[in-house]
């Protein structure tokens, strides 16, 4: 998260709503370790990454939905064990568990 703080600050200073996605667990083979983080603002601008590019698009959609809902954070999983596997699977075959939340703390 360290590397995305400057972007988050810039967005917050401009009055934008921000959601942050963090990898909390990897099962099997995964490209990024727990703690890898990505921030998304209300305009869909992105900082950081949570995988090798496999799931970022889906994470942006989830993050924008969370910003729009105004609700609390939620867990999101991607991987071969998911129904969505063919849509947004990890190419390396692992499962990635993310926590996505609004930056309101």
């Amino acid at each position: 998260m360290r590397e995305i703080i400057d972007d988050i600050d810039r967005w917050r200073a401009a009055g934008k709503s921000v959601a942050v996605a963090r990898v909390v667990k990897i099962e099997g083979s995964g490209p990024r370790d727990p703690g890898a983080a990505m921030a998304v603002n209300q305009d869909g601008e992105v900082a950081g990454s949570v995988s090798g590019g496999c799931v970022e698009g889906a994470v942006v959609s989830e993050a924008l939905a969370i910003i729009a809902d105004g609700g609390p954070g939620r867990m999101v999983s991607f991987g071969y064990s998911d129904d969505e596997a063919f849509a947004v699977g990890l190419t390396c075959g692992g499962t990635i568990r993310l926590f996505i939340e609004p930056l309101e703390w």
Partner: protein
Amino acid sequence: MSLYERFRDLVKREVPVALATVIEGPGVGAKLMVSRENETEVVEGSLGHPELDRVVARDTAGELEAGRTGVRHYGPEGQATPEDLIDTPTVSVFIESFSPPPQMWIFGAVDFTAALGRVAKVLGYRVTVCDAREIFATKRRFPMADEVVVSWPSPMFENRGHTLGPRDAVCILTHDPKFDVPAVQGALASKVGYIGVMGSRKTHAKRLERLAEVGVNDPTDMARLMSPIGLDLGGRTPEETAVAICAEIIARRTGHSATSLRDTSGSIHS
């Protein structure tokens, strides 16, 4: 000031901090933060129950100390074995440690130093360039360095060697015995994880003689020296050499063989 703003300031000031977030169960999104500054531990925020806060603060402090990140499970009132609780929701807490970045000290203000500094920055190191020659050791020549220090190696290690640990690296690129020898001595006296010393095999052999002359010849110590420095990638330029050095640092840290994955078997990310 919000908890996020406190967190951001601590991270920017490179103060060790760990953040605990409820990711599943009652109170999703609630946070507790533990930081350690000047030997003092500070706990801020709450997960919604005093006993849960106490137990999670204790575990978070432990994870911070070890530099670990991961998920832990509790009962809603901090019970450490939630699997024993029947019909009670479990609280899953993601504990993330933010340790200050690892350090790389580069001795010798030469062309290779600038290239190595750039690659080290890409890898997230806090880079310090050190040379005793004032006209070479300038911030203008090494804009990528977090710090450029004009000093002989011995005082540098005497004053700050205790800040070096297993994640850190010392790269000695001077090729000059009057600088190399005290730098190697200083590095060996520290707990630094990687010590690389530049020079040909011939230079290395001569350096070992000079080190022996000053009583540095303990086999365990000598085994810590990576010299000639870097993996055998066959590169020539300062940039290629920098990649070979950084690749060696990674391989030494992970204990992996540094051969092509095509020619090995087993899990890649372990």
